């Protein structure tokens, strides 16, 4: 056998081993089984299924938003995790906001809950959500990120991560003062045709002011990576947001925070990462004034 043949054979074997042994599931680099259209063909109404959060009698309340939790790895900055610190911060913040008349009603995680999408990572995330529930009584609503879908992670997601779907919406209301919350499954860097059509259709029929959550930034001021890659999809979504009283779009993925204003229409906020930046956000919704505000905090 010629040397060149041996070299090609060896190279092929090495690449194959690299792909199959990579914890990020490189063997799925060219094809993943759970495509967006089959995974999230419809934006599910959680009010109908009874899974929507209960906000009690509060007309003004808060929601804690975290993103890029990445269970399965440590922070790139100090090679450790600070989940206990976050839980301490959350308990303190819960008491503080309660005293201000803006109690925290639930939590949101904007994707990349796990690092590799493997079952062990999902178990760590499920334990983390259980600790939040036990210590503060708050339920965590999650959407998928790209890391969650690695290694066919969707199969674990739909069995372990509340609310067991990744594209949904619900309504919070006090009398006729309402707010709608839309959670989009952008874990593949695209919503897919069916989810986008479902989302726009539901938004068109929904007159409430809205808040939208997505793992992938929709525009983020014009960066060309880590955002929705298809501009037709992006423009269609932004057009729907502008026409349907969307107040704010909250996103993750970039780890480094970013904010972009679409004039008086709505604001797009890319939240800083939980793990690498030890950052969390508090969203405050006032149903009476139909307003929404967002602040980031370090813990």
């Amino acid at each position, binding site marked *: 056998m010629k040397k060149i043949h041996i070299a090609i054979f060896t190279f092929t074997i090495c690449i194959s081993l690299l792909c199959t042994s990579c914890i990020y599931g490189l063997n799925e680099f060219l094809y993943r089984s759970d*495509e967006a259209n089959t995974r999230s063909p419809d934006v599910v109404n959680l009010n109908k299924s009874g899974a929507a959060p209960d906000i009690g009698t509060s007309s003004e309340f808060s929601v804690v938003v975290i993103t890029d939790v990445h269970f399965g790895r440590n922070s790139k900055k100090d090679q450790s995790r600070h989940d206990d610190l976050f839980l301490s911060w959350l308990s303190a913040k819960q008491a503080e906001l309660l005293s201000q008349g803006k109690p925290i009603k639930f939590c949101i995680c904007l994707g990349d809950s796990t690092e590799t999408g493997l079952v062990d990572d999902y178990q760590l995330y499920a334990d983390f959500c259980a600790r939040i529930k036990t210590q503060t009584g708050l339920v965590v609503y999650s959407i998928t990120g790209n*890391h969650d879908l690695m290694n066919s992670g969707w199969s674990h997601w739909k069995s372990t991560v509340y609310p067991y779907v990744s594209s949904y919406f619900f309504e919070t209301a006090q009398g006729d003062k309402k707010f709608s919350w839309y959670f989009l499954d952008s874990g593949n860097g695209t919503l*897919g*045709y069916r989810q986008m059509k479902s989302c726009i259709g539901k938004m068109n029929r929904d007159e409430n002011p809205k808040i939208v959550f997505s793992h992938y930034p929709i525009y983020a001021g014009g*960066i060309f*990576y880590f955002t929705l890659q298809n*501009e037709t999809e992006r*423009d269609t979504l932004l057009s729907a947001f502008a026409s349907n009283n969307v107040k704010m779009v909250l996103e993750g993925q970039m780890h480094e925070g970013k904010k972009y204003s679409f004039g008086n229409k709505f604001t797009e906020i890319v939240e800083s990462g939980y793990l690498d930046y030890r950052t969390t956000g508090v969203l405050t919704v006032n149903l009476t004034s139909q307003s929404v505000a967002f602040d980031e905090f370090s813990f």
Partner: protein
Amino acid sequence: MAQDAALQEQPATVEAQNKDAPQSDDALEKINLDDPSVANTPEFRGADEEEPEDSEIKNKTKRFYWFCSVPETEDHTYYHTVLLGNSRSTEHGIVLNNLSAQTLYKMNCPYVDCTAGIQQTENSNSFIANGTFWIMRYYHVLPDLRLKYRFGLSLFYDFQNLSGVSRQHNLYAGINSEMGAGKYIVFNICVLYGAKFSKIFSLQDEMPFLFNNDMGFGVTCSVRLPYRLILSMSISSYEDFYYPLFGAPTYTLGLSYTSKNRFQIKGEVAARYIDMFTLSSYLDCFWFRLMTGYTFK
């Protein structure tokens, strides 16, 4: 581009392909040195036409041509090609079952390739115009192989009107490099910078347009097969009528046949990916395209 170049190549004389042929001056004289006129001749001119004899380049094994300079015997014919086609995507991704009608016009001359085209789909209309000016062409005849290299500047413009949603203007500029090894294989690499403007109708009172910086790249390999067939393979961050952001490449496999009477038929299958910038790349959809065309002088 590389595919076009492959289309334009004319087969060399038999002597040039015979590795056993003596590499004397006489032998080199018999070799078609792949002058620009030949390089820009569509393949239908191939086997049944005489190759021009270029006394200027006899016995020279390395030649450079800059800008519009050409050998005395240069063939200044402009070749025009019109292609009509239909494309359909699969039931995946964001362009579910998208059917489009496409018309392309291409013009080739020794130092310029340019293309204009329109596309219509159910909810969008597109216009494209692009061109490459080959500022340097280099030809090198080795004993066993003829190398052809050319380098140029490319400009792409794409306009898309998305009904009731937005108008997009995509402008790309960059460098284009092409190498032909022998007469059978051509490699083309294109690297571009892009500026993208998008006017969203429902946001236009707040923002005149959205702007994106972007990059583009394309790598194409064209292989000439027997029976006037050309096989092309490419990885590219853009397509004829599709200019997404950088991390969404398309893998294309195409096969074209050009008859002696200049009719052309071409079939392509492509896989579009989303977010290959990260490790979580995703197969967005497949699309298929069938085109027919005719070339005239």
